């Protein structure tokens, strides 16, 4: 356990002392901020029209600003997460520090979870910074707080799944760029897999849409927390972390 904290601290130090985390966070905030602003501005325009023409229903910030905001943030996350995870193992392998780490009396589990947690912390900081948007919403309108809570929970779980996948890919290669590209492709694959639901059979389609990282997020964005979605993200993390473990162990006996 002490080792875990040591690893966590070391990793966070590396994160905050290299430009990558700042760059990723900045770009993430610029994009999601701009999309939030334009959604709100568009909503304001629609509201104006709706006031002139009564009888239009469902004009509220919860559905027209919050839901798209979460959807947008999840897409930008998909673009950004591989950049946060790419260096976690690849950098160490290239520098040769991984063998060093593995020769310490540190368990692979501690190393792995330490790195995973460090990346989660950075990601959480990114999420916390976006609380500005709901706060602005509270200032100017009355959003429903339920979807805000569940939306952030969903984003966190989905981000954790992205990080677990990125960790595995990073442990397989020495090249950070390769790691980022492969993670990006894999996440995208897992994301879009549900789309094929329409042209495969209904039973296979159900399985595929169940595998899709996107389909499980929809409920969260709307304010519905379903145990199935939560468990899926957790299972996803467990599987990829376990595979990363195996990949780390293989370093030992490959020599």
């Amino acid at each position: 356990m002490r080792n875990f904290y040591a690893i966590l601290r070391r990793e966070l130090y590396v994160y905050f002392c290299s430009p990558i985390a700042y760059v990723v966070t900045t770009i993430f905030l610029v994009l999601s901020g701009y999309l939030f602003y334009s959604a709100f501005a568009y909503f304001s325009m629609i509201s104006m029209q709706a006031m002139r023409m009564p009888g239009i229903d469902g004009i509220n910030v919860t559905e027209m600003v919050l839901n798209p905001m979460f959807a947008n943030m999840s897409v930008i996350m998909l673009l950004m997460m591989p950049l946060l995870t790419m260096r976690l193992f690849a950098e160490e392998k290239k520098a040769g520090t991984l063998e060093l780490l593995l020769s310490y009396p540190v368990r692979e589990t501690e190393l792995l979870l330490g790195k995973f947690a460090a990346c989660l912390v950075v990601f959480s900081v990114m999420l916390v910074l976006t609380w500005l948007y709901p706060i602005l919403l509270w200032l100017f309108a009355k959003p429903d707080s339920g979807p805000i809570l569940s939306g952030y929970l969903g984003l966190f779980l989905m981000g954790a799944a992205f990080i677990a996948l990125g960790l595995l890919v990073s442990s397989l290669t020495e090249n950070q760029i390769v790691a980022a590209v492969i993670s990006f492709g894999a996440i995208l694959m897992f994301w879009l897999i549900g789309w094929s639901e329409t042209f495969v059979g209904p039973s296979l389609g159900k399985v595929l849409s169940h595998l899709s990282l996107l389909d499980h997020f929809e409920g969260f964005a709307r304010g519905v927390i379903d145990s199935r979605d939560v468990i899926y993200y957790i299972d996803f993390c467990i599987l990829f972390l376990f595979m990363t473990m195996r990949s780390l162990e293989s370093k030992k006996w490959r020599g």
Partner: protein
Amino acid sequence: MARINPTKIFSALGYGGFIIIVAAAVTYGMIPAAQSYVWIGWLVGLLCLAAYAAGNFKTIRDYFRMRSTRHGANAFILVLLVLGILIFVEAISARHSARFDITATKRFTLSEQTTKILKNLEKPVHATAFYQEGAPEAQRTKDLLDQYAYGSPEFSFEFVDPDRFPGKARRYKITTYGTVVVETGAREEKITLADEQKLTNALLRVIRDEEKVVYFVTGHDEKSIDNLGKDGYSIAKEAIKNQNYAVRDILLMRAREAPADASVLIIAGPQKALFPEEISTLEQFVDQGGHLLILIDPETDTGLESFLKSYGIEVGQDIIVDKLSRIFGADYLTPVVSQYAGYHAITEDFESASFFPIAVSVSVAKDVPSYVQNTELAKTGPSSWAETDLAMLREGMATFDKDKDTMGPIPVAVVSTIKEKIEEAEKDQTKKADGDKPEESKESDDREAGPRPARIVVFGDSDFAGNAYLNLSGNRDFFMNALSWLAEEEDLIAIRPREEVNQPVVLSHTQGRILFWTSVVLLPGAIPLFGIIVLRRRRSA
């Protein structure tokens, strides 16, 4: 002496076998029909591989004896094991899940009534929603169906694009996009513009065990359901059958009492008067909470007038004349009916005009018994009047006589709900949004106990639902709405639609600027600043 190296042959065989197997697999993927060839390919490939393995037995054995291989296989098996466990966990979680709707309005939660019905669902029900691929309104329906599927393991659904699967659409006779078919093995129900109320009621209709019967009274020259001619009711019969009701004739004189399984008793345009015994049978039927649909034509003595009067329904001694708004090319005895009671379930949201060829006025009488609630469902236009001088009319001399005739709009249909008990008086009214929970439970209690309130609908014309006119404009909908409302059992329920929160927000110029600067400039700009400070301090340290 050039001898061919056997290991080379074997390795060539190995590669060849591998390529053949891959090719066979690809072929299978592309052309599933070529199955026999694929099998042959796989067999040949496997034989080649086996030959390669036999030839290189030693190398392979050594490879498997290496530590790394063992470890690798171990790792692989472990990953498979964990994957298996996780799949198992996922399967269990898919079966047993909990769902929390934390929206303020509980937008994604079904009403208690629906939840209860789903909980008690005992046979599989399947819903097929026909939407175009990617139609925006499909999402709403999918949300709704998702909640139903969550409520019961017996409920399943699928989405079908009728353009891509026209066969399926034809089998269910789908005519419009957005139709949802709810079916069990035995019955099916079609609904359009699905909302919770419609879906739940369709669900109730398909899981109903006993067949419901709509009876047409015969014996007084009524319109016949077997008559395919223009005066017949055969098209109406088909329409009723499509709603999952059996349609039968009944001779009241012989039956002595109305059949117990009658959902609705219809008297469609009798030309001769009913006998007093038959009238008393009808009275008994109404007392037991029966539902009657009566269509009366002008200038006929049906013997029903005093019977209807006792429920506060007045059938006039007149014919409605409308010289202005009538069907183009028809005479002025076919008034257009375009004013509907918007607050009654039958004519709610009803907009298309209907036409009543040769109609008599049917209105709510001046004195209505306290236990009866009457509503005039539909009226003719303001230019019409109820002509009482029938002799003149027959000579084609219809003029409005303000002493005797009534000026339009003239009511042509009345619905009455006859209640046993006074406290049930609110039952059929649509509830207002306050205090929903206790009322809802009270309503369901009511539905389980006590006789159902009797219902009567009287139309001042029988031709409008006949074969010649049923498919004209709004006629079919009007007739079928009335029939469905009458045929509804107490199990069919009214569910208040979820209220959509309407909350337009118009940003002021300043607010818009604040929004832009904080979310697009200040917050993202603060991060690099912070980063530069941190990195600088580290360098200087």
